[in-house]
């Protein structure tokens, strides 16, 4: 299922602002490491969202400093060790709050700008 590519300039700020929500949401149920997160973002958004891998980690470290996620090194047999991130209780609360805020924002946007959603 392919969607037409989105013009980059319109959504650059929106992408930046939604990065936290996206990462928190992806970590809600499963611990993941950085590459896994980048991969899921691209796959689940159908290519609409991609992150420069360095800025992905910058965002992850920022989230960790706020105490919303926590990272731990895990070494699996036969592999190099990777840093897995999980959501903290504080992060869960933040995720819920941000979801609400985005939901309201999007609804308002829809009413004003006349955007329909499936």
């Amino acid at each position: 299922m392919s969607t037409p590519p989105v013009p980059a300039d319109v959504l650059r700020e929106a992408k930046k602002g939604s990065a936290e929500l996206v990462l928190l949401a992806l970590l809600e149920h499963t611990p993941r490491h950085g590459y896994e997160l980048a991969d899921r973002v691209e796959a689940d958004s159908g290519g609409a969202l991609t992150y420069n891998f360095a800025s992905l980690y910058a965002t992850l470290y920022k989230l960790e400093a706020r105490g919303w996620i926590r990272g731990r090194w895990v070494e699996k047999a036969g592999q190099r060790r990777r840093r897995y991130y999980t959501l903290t209780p504080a992060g869960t609360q933040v995720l819920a709050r941000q979801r609400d805020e985005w939901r309201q924002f999007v609804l308002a946007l829809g009413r004003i700008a006349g955007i329909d959603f499936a």
Partner: protein
Amino acid sequence: MTDWERRVRQHGNTHGIDLADTVVEELAAHLEDAWRARVATAPDDPDAFAAAMLARADLSGLPRPHAAPPPAPLPAGEGRWGLGLLSDLRYTLRVLRRAPAFTAAVVAVLAVGLGATTAAFRVVHAALIAPLPYVDADRLVMVFERNVSRGRARNVINPGNFFTWSGRATSLDAAGVFSPSVGNLAGDGATPEELPAMVVQASVLAMTGVRPEAGRLFTVQDEEPSSPPVVLIDGGLWRRRFGGAPDAVGRTVVFNGEPATIVGVLPSTFHVAGYRGDVWRPTLITAGARTNFRGRGLLSLARLADGVTREQAEAELNGIFATLVDEHPEMNTGWDLSVVPVREQVGRETRPALLALFGAVGAVLLVACANIAALLLVRATARRHDLAVRVTLGAGPGQVARQVAVECLTLFALGGVLGAVVAAVLTQAMWRAAYDAGMVLQPEGGLNGPALAFAGGLTLLTGLACSLGPALRARRLSPDDLKAGGRSVAASTRGRGWLVAGEVAAAMLVLSGAALLGRSYVELQAVDPGFQADRVITARVSRMGAAAQASSLAFAGDVIARLQTLPGVTSAAATSFLPLDGQVGIGSTFRLGDRPDPGPGNLPVADYRPVTPGYFATLGIRMVAGRDFSAQDVGDRPRVAIVNETFVRQLSPDVSPLGRPLADSLDQTQEIVGVVADIALSGLGDDPRPTIYLPYAQFPVGSLTFVVRSAQNPALLGRAIVGAIREIDPNQPVSDVQPLADVVQASLVRPRVVTGALGVFGTAALLLAAIGVYGVVAYSVQLRRTEFGVRLALGATPGAIVALVVRQSLWLITGGVAAGAVLAVPLSGTLQSLLYGVTPGDPATLALVAAVIAIAGLLASYLPARRGTAVDPMSALRAE
């Protein structure tokens, strides 16, 4: 370093960006994953793909090595606990050194609270809990004779009964009798003195398993009347009077007028069921003793046979006793036997007072700990910034909580160690007070094993309890708490509010007890003893030994005559049992000779008191009807008696008792010739009982206490009185030379000590609770400074602000007082036996205490509230 890590570093260096090792590692891993994925899906030049990815990467937002995040990797789990604890301890000591006033205050309060509680425990443990110093102490019992209808639950026993049931019982391995007494020791060059003595069967000593410090114990041979007289002496007496000389054993002394050989020395701490003596004599078992079914006066100790319970033994003994009731109805009707474990008997009387004191000390400690817990909560809130930084730097919630707990526990450990020192000092004072109040047999030493264990356990328990709140709060910290204010502050204030309400409740409890006891003591002091104690001095002699007793009548007469010639003396007399001096006295059944015999179980009982003529006048006891004894009422003349008003009220309410015949339990008849007013015999708070006074000349029994009324200060007569007595008999020891007023005061020593102690503790608890209220209100006022500034700027008066604050603290105080009052009602029931003239839970007393606490609490909240009005509205608004 792998190839990928090298490449990431190179890329960073190209842009002048130095990255942390772990960041490099993570980026490298990501690149490697991307490369592998590329290899799997599109095999054309994955290297170029990865290189392009790296080239596009903007590394500027990534952390540098010196900035620390992401934090250094932890091994799986949350840090190694052992090393963590050590570093927490070091950190704690640094933190505490930086706040010396806080640390000193907390440690000092803890030391006093923990120390006082430990000292109280030392005494209570020794008196009530510690196993008695006997072999197999839990198998030892005392056997009492019991008469429920007369309210005699643990009465002394009759010898005939004892020898019968002890001979037939199979549930007892051994049994023996003993009785406390006094004795006069002389004949070894030192001054004759009257000493506490014990008359004891050899089997009693054997049952306890005591080992003599020197010499031997009594044997069954020593109990034969034909055996040479022997005594055992107490270790303390041995050292004091005999210098601890080894050859004291074997020496002959004069005891109660007769020569006796010292055969052994008992340990100075030895007692039989709480009774002790300086000199011990063997019971002399005459042939008549085994069939003596008149009179009760002995105590008995027995050892349960293996596998037999107390209830089984009691059942068997009462089966035997039933035949004794049939065989000797006049002695035994209405009586049975009760078997009581020795541990239960010892300390029975003192248990309520000791437990009340221990409870009060414990309550003060609780209040102190509550204050400290509140203080720790405030401190935790103040340090939340400090701790939040640790969380941000990667400390897990468990680590932060552990650090806070270590800090609290360290404070408590310091307080506990210092508290042990305080306890060692306070223990001596507690022993002194308890001994003076007659609550312990003798003062013991300092802290022992159980006391130290208690101190350690108490410190740990209180430390853990007080660290719980701050530690749990610390667990919930997040980097968000780096911002000012927040919910944690409000929660801390609420927590403190609960603590302080609890403190107020505890203060209410202790003060209620103190107030009830205080009122009771005042009532006791106001009781009219029925005699005039001022200007009367007393002196006691015990005429022990056959020779002395034979001459006691002449002795008494001579001494009284001599005393009456002393300057200033207006009258002198003697009695066998001085009122309120603590002696039990003689009680016996009797019947009115002109009434039908009511039967052995229904005979009334009266206290018998031998007195000399002039006794009532000397003591100022009111003569209600009839006459006093005279010099004509002597042994070969018709026997007479004087009774008290209670006797008349209970036994001869409609007919004048004068002239009526009394028959005592020895079948001697007396004619009632007088009636006197009731006096307090055993205790100021006790109800008066029927009393029969007999002329000493017709009933010369017991030790003699001389009473002398003088026109001047009676205390000045002491030496003259002793001199007069020594003139008549130089070898007669004289003891307890004291004003009668002192005797009356001494009878109140225990209520005085207990009330005083509870008053001190109650005041301490109130002070601490007031400090707690002050602290909570002061802190809350400080938080609300801005709000008050705004209110003032908007026109509120300072009075309104104060009223606002005080009203809100009223909730706290009212709640605490109410909770304390609700608890005080049932708890004061445990003081029942110590109260006189006031019921436990007396509403007026509780209301008064509640009012005092409420006023103290309001004052404690008014002071900081007033400071809250000193806010400058303009600066408060600017801060907003």
